[in-house]
């Protein structure tokens, strides 16, 4: 990048310690005045070697490790890992467990999107937005905390079920929280729609077209904002998503405004899913009949085989490729994180924009470097 530097160009490093970033990575920008002429990303500041660690932990211990892939969506990560293992074991959780999982994962989606919207607000200078959303997120986290006993790293899912049943009073509390949340989401939307400064900063900024987004391998809200209805919950239903009624939220503009709008709509959609789940959740056991893998799991050997399982993370498509050689530890786990390709697509997207837009575009992707750099 140093080569061919013209006299009025300079290289500026954003990161690894920069308020714009969701985590440490380095963005090298070649600037001409305020305009970005070239961009390059360097990763690896918080590489945790999760894939190597998983190879050295038993399946049960692995659940606690995959929590740490992305601290915002620990339950979705667990779902992916546990789903892989369940496929290898050939078991399926009973319906009540599946509903509980869906409830918790949708709550996770809501809290992640709330944080994403707030962060985006902060990146374009609207600091209070972060506080508004984080306050709503706190309520949702409280619900998750009530069920799992932890706010960030839950280790709640088990092979073939969940660790514990929903506590008493969960339904009532959830419904009241969700009703408040609906009002707040409407408020946020109205604020975003009526604010002229916000519109000037977002409309037409960082535009991805459907073809380009597909080519770049982007998934999740960033892709859906371009009008592609790609959602693993619909394309390849897991758990009980095939019984539930929901629609895939899409926008057509593909700019920062559309991405945030997709997130807001997805929060509404998640609330709708949660209401259905709470109505329909059947009574029954948490684990399949006659399973050895109940709450207290023995040392288990997973049959040899390989599997690729995908779930819909709040940021897009999360996949895990697991190879088992019949021992009690996975032979190889490949984590396909959703933010990794999105981050990769950042440099082509920001070339030609200004420094201020870099923050807006990067923020609208709702990043989690921890997961890209796992």
């Amino acid at each position, binding site marked *: 990048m140093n080569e061919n530097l013209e006299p009025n160009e300079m290289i500026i490093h954003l990161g690894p310690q920069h308020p714009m970033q969701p985590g440490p990575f380095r963005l090298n920008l070649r600037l001409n005045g305020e305009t970005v002429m070239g961009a390059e990303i360097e990763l690896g500041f918080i590489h945790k070697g999760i894939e190597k660690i998983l190879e050295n932990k038993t399946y049960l*211990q692995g659940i606690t490790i995959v929590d740490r892939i992305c601290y915002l969506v620990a339950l979705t990560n667990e779902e992916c890992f546990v789903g892989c293992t369940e496929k290898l074991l050939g078991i399926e959780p009973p319906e009540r467990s599946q509903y509980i999982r869906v409830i918790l994962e949708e709550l996770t989606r809501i809290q992640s999107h709330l944080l994403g919207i707030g962060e985006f607000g902060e990146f374009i200078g609207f600091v209070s937005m972060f506080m508004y959303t984080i306050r709503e997120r706190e309520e949702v986290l409280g619900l998750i905390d*009530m*069920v*799992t*006993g932890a706010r960030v790293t839950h*280790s709640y899912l088990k092979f073939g079920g969940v660790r514990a049943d929903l*506590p008493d009073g969960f339904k009532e509390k959830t419904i009241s929280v969700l009703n408040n949340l609906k009002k707040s989401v409407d408020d946020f939307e109205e604020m975003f729609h*009526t604010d002229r400064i916000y519109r000037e900063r977002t409309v037409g900024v960082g535009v991805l077209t459907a073809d380009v987004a597909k080519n770049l391998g982007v998934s999740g809200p960033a892709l859906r904002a371009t009008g592609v209805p790609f959602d693993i919950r619909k394309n390849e239903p897991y758990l009980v998503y095939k019984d539930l009624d929901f629609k895939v939220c899409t926008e057509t503009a593909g700019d920062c405004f559309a991405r945030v709008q997709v997130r807001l709509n997805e929060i509404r959609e998640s609330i709708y899913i949660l209401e259905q789940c709470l109505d329909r959740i059947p009574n029954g056991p948490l684990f399949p009949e006659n399973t050895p893998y109940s709450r207290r799991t023995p040392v288990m050997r997973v049959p040899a085989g390989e599997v690729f399982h995908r779930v819909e993370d709040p940021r897009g498509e999360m996949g895990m490729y697991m190879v088992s050689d019949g021992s009690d530890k996975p032979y190889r786990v490949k984590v396909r994180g959703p933010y990794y390709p999105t981050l990769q697509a950042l440099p082509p997207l920001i070339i030609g924009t200004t420094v201020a837009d870099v923050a807006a575009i990067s923020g609208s992707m709702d990043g989690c470097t921890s997961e890209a750099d796992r």
Partner: protein
Amino acid sequence: MVLKNIKYALKKIPKPPVTRMYPEKASELSERFRGLQILDKSKCIGCGICANTCPNNAIRIVKVPIAPGSDKKRWFPEIDIGHCLFCGLCIDQCPKGALSSGKEYAKGLVKWKHKDLLMSPDKLAREISIEEGDER
């Protein structure tokens, strides 16, 4: 224009704060909160399943007196809280239900040195105070 934002901001001014003065006013913990483990010495058989399950190898089985000052020794788990993830697997896997979650998450767990974070069976059983040995 931006009037809606301003209105929203003004609406928030009279509302009470949602934050707390932390050390004075403790957080409300959920019932299933996983804090520092509690060991029931009468139930523990010293089998070592917890030590094998621990993802971070934080648990060690040590032979210690069954009570402070006693001559009789038995095997009990000793948890290095500095490495503990608070995942709760040891509690799930305990065959006798000897381990359970406590509510301590800050008190007694803030130490200057890593070695002070080693929770001996006595401390886990709350037979001696967990704040003991806290030099500052």
